[in-house]
């Protein structure tokens, strides 16, 4: 018997063997295509949103506004990339925002207050991200605690550390050496202003996507998330893979801290602590399963863009702030419903 059904997993360019028993309706076939390329469905939602908001307010589609949306998405998009890695292993990280804030405070304070060279400060920020990842990873792999709990606990710890370390003080961008705020610089590309932070986020996405799809490590991440016991029995060092995922995500969070400093031209303990749920929202709207092992980083990027477009578009459309909250809630449910309907192709 010949079977057809594409993997949602790192499979690239699916081989299409001939089907001698194909009895599908056109609708099924569309769903099939969407299912084979899971990033299409959030892509469609995004395009629809852009069209609708463009219709509601002319200014929405102006290059300057679109460029703003990308800048608004850069930080949460980077956090969501780290979150995607964790969620692919069937984990969840409630501490991404807190780790980013801690790293950004360390970067800013060590360079501005302690006079370290900017590169050293960034290096220390990276060290903070890695240390936070290592701590979370240790608790998840060694003590076998559920990631939800680990990061719920470490969220509090990192928040307290940030405030204890910074004393709640904000470091202004104009006091920092220019390397730290570099990520906020923009350059024009065909009329659209692109910030270096957006470029960095995009580079990270491309790199992580290539690594996940192209390397053995990437496959092991999917395998571990899919069924850790099966992966263990197949000879994969599950703890090692998990630890490396937490470390990688910690490193990405350090980059997010840098992007964040450039974006708000400041390092403040108040910035971005609430971005945990936003990052999870982006991942889920992007079609990655919270049960692990299924999903792709492209979806996450689209998910982050969808949320960003919604927030910006609703605001341009002049909706009352409370109704914006309402609309974002409805969006989350609607976007995932559409995705779920498409995924029915599998069942």
């Amino acid at each position, binding site marked *: 018997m010949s079977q057809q059904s594409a993997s949602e997993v790192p499979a690239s360019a699916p081989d299409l063997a001939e089907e001698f028993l194909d009895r599908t309706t056109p609708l099924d076939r569309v769903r099939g295509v969407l299912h084979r390329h899971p990033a299409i469905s959030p892509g469609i939602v995004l395009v629809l949103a852009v069209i609708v908001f463009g219709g509601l307010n002319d200014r929405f589609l*102006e290059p300057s506004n679109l460029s703003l949306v990308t800048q608004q998405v850069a930080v949460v998009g980077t956090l969501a990339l780290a979150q995607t890695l964790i969620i692919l292993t069937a984990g969840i990280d409630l501490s991404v925002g807190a780790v980013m804030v801690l790293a950004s405070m360390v970067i800013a304070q060590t360079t501005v207050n302690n006079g370290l060279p900017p590169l050293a400060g960034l290096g220390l920020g990276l060290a903070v991200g890695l240390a936070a990842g290592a701590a979370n990873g240790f608790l998840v792999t060694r003590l076998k605690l559920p990631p939800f709990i680990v990061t719920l606990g470490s969220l509090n710890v990192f928040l307290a550390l940030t405030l204890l370390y910074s004393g709640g*003080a904000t470091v*202004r961008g104009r006091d920092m050496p220019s390397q730290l705020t570099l990520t*906020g610089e*923009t350059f024009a590309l065909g009329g659209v202003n692109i910030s270096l932070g957006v470029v960095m986020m995009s580079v990270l996405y491309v790199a992580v996507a290539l690594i996940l799809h192209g390397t053995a490590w990437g496959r092991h991440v999917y395998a571990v998330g899919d069924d850790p016991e099966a992966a263990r029995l197949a000879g994969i060092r599950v703890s090692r893979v998990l630890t490396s995922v937490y470390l990688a995500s910690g490193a990405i969070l350090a980059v997010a801290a840098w992007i*964040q400093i450039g974006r708000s031209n400041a390092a403040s303990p*108040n910035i971005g602590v609430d971005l945990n749920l936003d990052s999870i929202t982006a991942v889920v709207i992007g079609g990655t399963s919270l049960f692990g092992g299924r999903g792709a980083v492209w979806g996450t990027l689209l998910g982050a863009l969808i949320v960003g477009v919604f927030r910006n578009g609703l605001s341009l459309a002049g909706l*009352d702030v409370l109704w914006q909250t309402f609309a974002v809630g409805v969006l989350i449910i609607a976007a995932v419903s559409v995705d779920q309907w498409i995924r029915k192709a599998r069942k």
Partner: protein
Amino acid sequence: LSGCGSESDGDTIGVSLIVKTTSNPFFVAMQEGAEAAAEDAGVELSVAAGQSDGDEETQIQAIENAISRGDAGILITPNGPGVEDALIRARDAGLYVIVLDTPPSDTEAADITFATDNFLAGQKIGQWAAAQLGGEKAVIGMIDIFDDKIVSVDVQRDQGFLDGMGIDIGDPAVIGDEASTGQYSGGEFEIVGHEASQGAEDGGRTAAENLLSANPDINVVYTINEPAAYGAYEAFEAAGATEDLVVVSVDGGCAGVDAVTGGIIGATSQQYPVKMAELGVEAIKQLVDTGEAPETTEGLDFYNTGVELVTDQPHDGIEAITTDEAKELCWG
């Protein structure tokens, strides 16, 4: 690490400071002021805070814990009217309750209030902004704190500002119910929208970007506090729209005063959290030692710790202090 290992026996006086959150520099300043004053006065200070702005539940617990701990008094910046019943219980239990920063809606809830008049703070920057425009059309962007909570500071400053501009604010308890175009004291105005910023730089920037996209002609930006103002200015700078821009804010932290000096913020209303905290600690100490309670400012139902307009571009008839003066008084 304040007050560690407090043994509240009869000799030491215990005072609780309960702030809104631990992450806002305003409250950090307040905490530091209280700690310094407590050290001077020989008072045992315990600090508590809500988990986030608006978190009443945690503050209620902190009030109860203060009663349990046997503190002599409570200094609190309430996260909302929800905590007032707990304050009444604390007073019934014999604690002296001083509400800081935000007057309670129920006068029973506090023995006395040491506060900034937030509506007045808003009015001052509103009047200044109107004068600064000199009759030009005002295209106004409003940057508040929250879109998922309603808190009194947010409402009072926002509405105070519009009132100061001479705009009819409708219901003073509701943000955004005013007409979006009309006449202010100096001419025509247009309100582009109210956006939330979470009171932080990134939120301020995003809010300002969205307002700018909606209307690139914005020339007046009201912001809930200085971090939001700072972020908003970044957005205007990135858009090359800072010329003739009027940014006003409230707080008067040292960083905010610097921003006024640097031309980022046109004017800000300065508050005195450190003073509030110091006065509070001293008042309770004095009450225990001498039985003498502090009194409200004449003509007001609270002790006004004052609010001053800080600007280097003064206008006739609008009382203001310079940034040099403000630097002497600033916090953070």
